């Protein structure tokens, strides 16, 4: 009985998904939107818009209010006790999702990571004499030159791979925007957990860390987690060495945009988050020389 009712509920959720909605279900009406709203559409009162910018999306009929700054909670690690709020400009942590920018950044990083060491020998590099193997005419068989011909077994490879540089270029401002878009996406989903500096545990015990992950629902059943610290933390890093199933820990200098998008959530130190935002804000800082 209860399951039947929930089946109907899940059906409505499926129809909701079919309409291509990507927002939090709590903020939406669960009934499918089959007709337009009966209410008269009007603009928001000016008092509400103060401190916010009204963004008109071309696709949707409604206009989205973008706040000028957003709040994050700073937690204590590993107790997850909330300590204080911190505010960040929405240009850092509340950017709209741009999948094309994220794609370009991930591909750019992947290209740069490529080793490019695949190598083959051409017919000129294969070792051996360049003597003509058999006479041009008279043998009744195909004409052949050297033993290194790509037609023959043991010969060179015609257009095989050679060591080369696969790295590509991406405008710095686009890359920086992609970094901040990834963090904004995490923040909007609620998967960005900011902790105090000095994120470490008392004992380098992997069993302890596994229990912490289980308790906080950070582990494998919940999509795994990425911990980002400013420096090397002896106990934390040692404990998480065998916890690959549940997550991983990285220093902020070793993190890529792809790492931010990969796992289920990010638990990051505040100073590490500030470092990332500081290093990737070239499109917000103008380098124009002012005369006045």
């Amino acid at each position, binding site marked *: 009985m209860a399951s039947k009712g929930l089946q109907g509920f899940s059906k409505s959720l499926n129809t909701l998904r079919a309409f291509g909605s990507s927002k939090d*279900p*709590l903020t939406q009406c669960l009934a499918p939107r089959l007709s337009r709203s009966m209410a008269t559409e009007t603009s928001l009162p000016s008092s509400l818009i103060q401190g916010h910018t009204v963004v008109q999306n071309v696709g949707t009929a409604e206009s989205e209010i973008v706040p000028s700054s957003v709040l994050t909670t700073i937690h204590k690690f*590993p107790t997850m006790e909330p300590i204080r709020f911190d505010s960040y400009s929405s240009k850092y942590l509340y950017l709209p999702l741009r*999948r094309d920018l994220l794609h370009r950044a991930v591909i750019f990083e992947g290209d740069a990571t490529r080793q490019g060491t695949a190598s083959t020998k051409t017919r000129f590099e294969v070792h051996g004499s360049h003597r003509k193997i058999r006479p041009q005419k008279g043998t009744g068989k195909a004409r052949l030159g050297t033993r290194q011909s790509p037609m023959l077994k043991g010969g060179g490879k015609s257009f095989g791979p050679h060591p080369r540089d696969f790295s590509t270029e991406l405008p710095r401002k686009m890359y920086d925007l992609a970094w901040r878009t990834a963090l904004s996406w995490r923040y909007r989903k609620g998967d960005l957990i900011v902790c105090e500096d000095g994120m470490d545990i008392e*004992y380098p015990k992997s069993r302890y860390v596994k229990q912490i992950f289980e308790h*906080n629902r950070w582990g494998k059943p919940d*999509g795994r987690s990425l911990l980002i610290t400013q420096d090397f933390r002896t106990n934390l890093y040692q404990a998480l060495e065998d916890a690959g199933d549940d997550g991983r820990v990285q220093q902020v200098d070793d993190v890529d945009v792809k790492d931010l998008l990969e796992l289920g959530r990010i638990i990051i130190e505040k100073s590490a988050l500030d470092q990332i935002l500081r290093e990737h804000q070239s499109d917000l800082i103008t380098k124009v*020389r*002012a005369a006045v």
Partner: protein
Amino acid sequence: MPPRLPALTAYCRAAPSYSAPLKALLTPFLQARNASILATLSDTPGAYNKRIRRGRGPSSGKGKTSGRGHKGQKQHGSVPARFQGGQTPQDIVHGKRGFENLFSLEMSPINLNKIQDWIDQGRLDPRKTITVKELVESRCLHGVKDGVKLLARGKEDLKTPINIMVSRASAEAIKTIEDLGGKVVTRYYTKTSIKRLLKGESESTELPLVSNPGAMLSAAEAASTSSPFMYRLPDPTARKDLEYYRDPAHRGYLSHLLAEGQGPSLFFRTPGTTRRKKAKIPGAAQAQKDNRLW
């Protein structure tokens, strides 16, 4: 003995699960899977271009002859662009037009609307004289060759009175700036002098080298003029340049050397300024009429 782990974790609060608590409620009933966004990342459709691989089958559209057609030199090789099979090519028949003047000066144009835009952005200071150096440093101009000419595109947009010194200026630009209460001065620059100005080796000034061209600088005067600048700005010597900068209509910096009512030309006299050499003899015209033969 280290504390028992269950007791420790009891102190930990449940981690904030902001992401879709409704999903957590319905997990036992729905097939909730943590799908990675990496699986759905893609660039915009216009970023993808079909790569043409020639000679790879009929369905590709470029198979078999690979877009080259059948037989002939064009299939097997290439023909030069202007070649017409032996017939005299068109550029030989009709010939080339004109020539390239190596002595022409390349003046970089700068329009009034861009100057106003730069002033609005705070990149140019309207209280100071705007010279070639300020324009290049604020990136209003990207590199200057022989000089800068001030032109009047967007003259309605200019709102602030400015004090500007460039190589040349159009009549409309001069009028617009002076109507607003500004000042235009055109000054002679060479390629080298501009380079020195930009490096800071020359001082930007609207005074000519010698204020009284007739007098010679005495040795003492020359020795006493000491300045941190290595080089001075040159003055024009060619007739064309002299005439340009002597012309008050161009707001030339040498126009103060002209006498009242004198034209800028070095060759032509201004009409009405010189007296006739021959004095008129009274009755000479009547005598000429009377002495006519037929």
